[in-house]
């Protein structure tokens, strides 16, 4: 009996031990989906998360707007002979391009997060008025952000200039699981969904008087509607919504002395929607366009082209040339934009998503030569140039060219150029590549992952 004691000890140890290793393990540092959307606290936090999805590197963290400039006559590919980047530099992106592949997923991540919130908040049943107001506000913001992402998807991957086209984007409005597959909608359906979201958001947020450009508010929604209608070539609505924003009173165009502060001060009067970054949450604008004063050309991904300098040399009074630097021998004959050069150590440059100047130029374009020239002149004169008279722009094509040039001068390296060329049918003319390159290819991995349910754009 005495000899058997050790074995009992060992058996006891074994039994004690067996209660230790639990097979049900939950992350102690993250939140399970089941814990979300039981109260307004988690709803508010999910909304913060939704804004954060806009700031990832592939989206407004820098790449989405910067790649648009690179894929146009504004940009030259830097970096270390990076094949994927060079494809943008040559305006001929292929479907295995890594940047496009990541961009597609990043934009849908915003859509997915918005959908999670929109569906999730249906589970909050508190009828208190305060709660209901909050629910309406969150819903409005989520719808507007979903519309922003959907529109950015449409102008990158869809035939946004042709409302009769079948090449719209997959419109996702429900919570997705791993095996969910959504086919592409038509361009008309894509626009309908975007505009419906924005209209619903507008109603939900109508009482909001705040104009903080870091958050969705009625002015942001109107500005986005103006842009969407312009792309859709619904000039009446484009002008109407642009007017709403211009007359809002919260924004004003900065004059020829003040406009550089758009890029140095935060939340200037020009900004309608500006995504803020800070040291903890840095953006990539500085590092990808400027890096440091004596950077090598390989250090910078998005180089300003010699053509852009030539463009400004033909606009002698235009002060916006000062936002470009062609003096560094490491980049010659090309140069760098200086829009993001100020925050070398902080790297917290904002993303300028919607500015009041764009509203003037949208209205200038929408109203046409006779009625729109005043708006075009508003922008030009505030940038050091002299106002144009109707005789300077004798016909519609010259006027359209003037508006297009003004857009290029104002928004270079803010992600407009490629989309502007595409929507005005100038890709083949200006860039010398087939018109089918007016849109990026759907990433090959998406065609494969959906077994061809998501179809490729023509020409790729």
């Amino acid at each position, binding site marked *: 009996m005495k000899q058997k004691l050790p074995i009992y000890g060992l058996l006891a140890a074994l039994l004690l031990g067996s209660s230790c290793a639990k097979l049900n393990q939950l992350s102690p540092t993250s939140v399970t989906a089941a814990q979300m959307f039981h109260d307004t606290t988690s709803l508010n936090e999910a909304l913060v998360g939704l804004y954060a*999805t806009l700031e990832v590197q592939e989206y407004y963290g820098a790449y989405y707007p910067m790649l648009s400039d690179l894929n146009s006559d504004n940009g030259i590919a830097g970096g270390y002979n990076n094949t994927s980047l060079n494809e943008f530099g040559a305006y001929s992106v292929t479907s295995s391009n890594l940047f496009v592949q990541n961009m597609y*997923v990043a934009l849908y991540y915003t859509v997915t997060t918005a959908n999670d919130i929109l569906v999730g908040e249906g589970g909050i049943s508190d009828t208190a008025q305060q709660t209901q107001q909050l629910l309406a506000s969150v819903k409005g913001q989520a719808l507007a952000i979903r519309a922003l992402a959907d529109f950015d998807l449409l102008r990158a991957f869809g035939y946004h200039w042709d409302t009769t086209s079948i090449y719209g984007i997959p419109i996702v409005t429900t919570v*997705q699981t791993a095996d969910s597959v959504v086919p592409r909608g038509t361009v008309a359906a894509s626009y309908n969904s975007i505009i419906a979201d924005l209209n619903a958001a507008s109603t939900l947020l109508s009482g909001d008087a705040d104009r903080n450009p870091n958050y969705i508010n009625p002015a942001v929604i109107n500005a986005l509607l103006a842009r969407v209608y312009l792309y859709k070539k619904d000039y009446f609505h484009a002008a109407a919504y642009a007017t709403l924003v211009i007359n809002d009173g919260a924004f004003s165009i900065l004059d020829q002395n003040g406009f550089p502060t758009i890029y140095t001060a935060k939340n200037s009067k020009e900004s309608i929607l500006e995504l803020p970054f800070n040291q903890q949450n840095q953006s*990539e604008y500085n590092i990808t366009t400027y890096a440091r004063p004596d950077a090598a050309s390989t250090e910078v991904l998005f180089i300003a082209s010699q053509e852009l300098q030539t463009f400004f040399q033909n606009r002698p009074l235009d002060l916006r040339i000062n936002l470009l630097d062609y003096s560094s021998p490491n980049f010659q*004959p090309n140069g760098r934009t200086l829009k993001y050069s100020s925050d070398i150590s902080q790297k917290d440059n904002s993303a300028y998503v919607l500015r009041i100047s764009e509203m003037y130029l949208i209205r200038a374009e929408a109203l046409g030569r006779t009625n729109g020239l005043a708006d075009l002149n508003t922008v030009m004169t505030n940038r050091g140039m002299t106002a144009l008279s109707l005789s300077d722009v004798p016909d519609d094509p010259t006027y359209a060219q003037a508006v297009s040039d003004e857009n290029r001068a104002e928004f270079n390296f803010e992600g407009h150029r490629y989309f502007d060329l595409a929507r005005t049918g100038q890709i083949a003319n200006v860039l010398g590549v087939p018109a089918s390159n007016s849109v990026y290819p759907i990433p090959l991995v*998406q065609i494969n992952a959906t077994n061809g349910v998501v179809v490729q754009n023509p020409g790729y």
Partner: protein
Amino acid sequence: MSQTVRASYLLPVSLLLCLFFPLAILAQSLVVHGTIKDADGKPIAGASIVVKGSSKGVTSASDGTYSISIPSANAVLEFSYVGFSAKTINVKGKTLLDVSLEAAGGQMVDVLVVGYGTQKKSDVTGAISSIKNKDFKDQPVSNLAVSIEGKLSGINVTQPSGTPGAGLLVSIRGAQNPLYVVDGVPMLSESFSSLNTAYNLSGQATGTGQNISSISDINPDDIASIEVLKDASAAAIYGARAANGVVLVTTKRGKAGKTNINLNYYTGIQNLEKMIHFLNSQQFLALTNDAIAQDINVYNNESKAAGYDTSRYGNLAVLQGVGIVDGNGNPIADAAAQYYDLSSGVNTNWLKQVFRTAPINNVELSASGGNDKTRFFVGGGYFDQNGIIIENYFKRYNVRLSIDNQATDRLSFGTTITASRSDNKRSFNDNTYTGIVTNALGASPLMPVFSSPGVYADFTQYQASWLSDNPVKSAQQINAHTYSDRVIGSVYGEYKIFSTLKFRTSWAIDYNDVSDNQYFSALTVDAQTVGGKLLEGRLNSFTWLNENTLTFQKAFGSHNLTLLGGYTQQSDQVQQSALQGTGFPQTGNVQDISDAAFVSRPTIPFPVTTSTLQSFLGRVNYDYQGKYLVTATMRADGSSRFPSNERFGYFPSASLGWNITKEKFLNDNPIFNTVKLRVSYGLTGDQEIPDYQNQVYWGPARYNGSAGLSPLNLSAPALSWQNNKTFNTGLDLDLFHHFINGSIEYFVSERTKLLGQQPVAGTTGFGSIITNSGQIEDKGWEFQFATNNIHTGHFTWTSSFNISFLKNRIKSLAVDSQYVSAYNDQSPTNILKIGKPVGEFIGVRFAGVNVQNGDAEYYDNMGHLERADQVNFTRDATMIGSPRPKFFGGLTNNFQYKNLDLVIALQFSYGNKVFNLIRTTYESLGWSGASTPGSAYLPQVYANNDTRVEKRWEKPGDHTDIPRASFLLQNYFPNSDEFMENGSYLKIRTVNLGYTIHKLKGFSSARLYVQAQNLLDITKYIGFDPEVSSTGGGNDQTAGIDYAAYPQARTFTFGVNLNF
């Protein structure tokens, strides 16, 4: 301990007595003397010799000799020693009686460590490869897996990088990342360094980069044997984690007998195995001049042919804009030369600036011994390797203790504790922009290291735009350390409940604390704008493991039965954190995070994780007369990583063996000493996925100073165990009077429900999920043989040879034709395609150089020829080759002449391709580096080139593989098989020449040796070494890519091994 010491004094004294008084002893009675040796012929000290039927006995001396007086000429002597089978011998009038004792349960060669036990080799029915310390000792390496490189069939070990402490690509029968089990404790083996050494200029990690292995925490000197369990029959007892094979490491333990004190020391030097030769300053300028002249030529020819002003570069204005022709289209003399100041006399050989001859030192001191109750081993070691790249080193300190005690006839217990600390001063290399090798390959020879004393030359002011920094500056101004502290300890108790039934329980912990410190001084490009940058990472892991087994063993006549049953549980906890500091005082070079002007904390998705495993296991071994063998195993594993309905996985296996030579018709056959046929089939599993993938989580997200949450993952439907079904058949042979022995194996293994990233529709917001999908088949033949070629009195020559022919094929995938990029910002390099091996390279096919105009030509998707600037990668890329060898293996020859011994170990690999992506930089043929012809900039070209480009196309009629130089456009396409090379090699891996001195004053034996590691590499590969994989150790999807890998060193060492 004190008893043992006294005993060791007593032995020489008794020996002296024997020497001085032989006559007196003879006069008294008959005397028998002789030497007691083990099966290897080594003397056994302290063995007992007893006259049967009396209490009279002696013990053998330190050299194994004994002398005993016997009562009659027909006395019977009993020879015994702990751990060896006793022998009883009738003297039959002899006076000289040499005795050889066999280790209990067979000698080392005959006993294999298997999961949860040991087994006689003759009884083994699974596929197990085994290697003993004597076959890998003395190698100047930090990682045990290097020790088995080229030595075992079916196991392909690749050193992806020559960086000290590097992780290895260990592939067992085509599957990567085996489970390592050290003395019964499954050991975490992945890279624990929480920081990358591959960043792009935004400071983001660009790939897995340099991989260091936590297996380096184990001192290879401490290892007694390594067994690799290759088939399901052998490995299924480790069920859940055995799908990729199991490596069992057994460390040295004490043996009863005299205390043996062992000192092992080696010292040596290492240098670069192979130099790549670069153009000097004049040749560099000449290349650029040629490139410009050729471009003007091409323009003239194309304009002429077209009849108007046009060319692939554009019109004349483009060439004028760049400044290579004047307004009339005439070449501007010395257009580039003005920027290449040859008069400076600078002619830097950058490889010589960053590589060096570096010392390596290792010292290991141990004592082992014990008596029949208690055995011990204590040891400590210090390993100090300087890298062959300046500033780089790896140091490891380790101690180890093992004690085994036989408390009673029934109860025994013991412990093994190892502790180590390593300091890896990292060298930024292997797939990184700021890498030292990366930048040295291609730096301009006209650039000096220092532009004035103490001032690093500013790389942007010199000709090669490829550089991201001055390589010497990177080496000296990035101070990166990975410190690893590790304690592995285990205790066990064993109790014999009956003579046939044994209970064993063990408890083990594995604690690992890895901290990374990367300081980029304000002089580096990475941190210039922020005034110095420090990245700190910490990873802390703690594993505990409890295993309990019952073993029943009994012979029923000719039937032998062994039953094993067990219950085990394990828990792993990992904690990670990271900090980034920017802005440091420049005075005094302070580098602590607390000195930083600004500190931020990067987000980690799951910073704290716990995973658990509970398992039940069982095994039956049955044999009839050792002739017919049956083994069956079963393991049930429950893992916290899977959803509750899929939590348990069941892994059975069965195998049969037939020792044909034990049949009457082959009994005592002189040709067939052993012939054993084996066949097995079974299932193993894999659960190696990150924690918490079994449900949807929301993780931290920040916006405008507020904290929020956003979705972290997408949950996979029915996430479950990966399965590996293996069929194996083998033949063990021992032929011609033991002249040749070995085994032949054939296996087919099918990995199904593979765990990994599977692409999902991007409309879900995620690119991929971790789930089960796809099926991979591995099959192959393996041959492993050892021969005793010559065995005369003084001279022996033995050889061992192995060769493996393995085939790997993807049988199904959830999504076919998945492109994989070695670098997350570059074009795809590999593809996963059904019907093809994993990791097949993709690229555009190179058609050669046009003899007439020197254009590099490629095949488009229709098979037509096109120029580099006409290639459309997505359209034209196709599968171009495989990084997997057709066969690989090794040949080791051992020679012994008297006290002299010589080992020559060769290793070979045939048919594997290497994608030499870095060569696209240093064979850029004078290209400007600009992405459009018009933006070419005269003062700079992309990179300096190696001297191979001197054989390039220069004039019509030149037959060569190297295209025409071109300044304005790349006359080569990087992602093409122009840069995929034959990676076959034959290496003289090890040459070791030793001399042993016996019975020297002060110690019992001493061996002196000289050793050469990586002596010779016979290969056609153009880069440093075809044995390379720049994307690190664990990934076979992007294996075989050379992107400025840290090259392997050739090492010469001198060593001494003293036994006291």
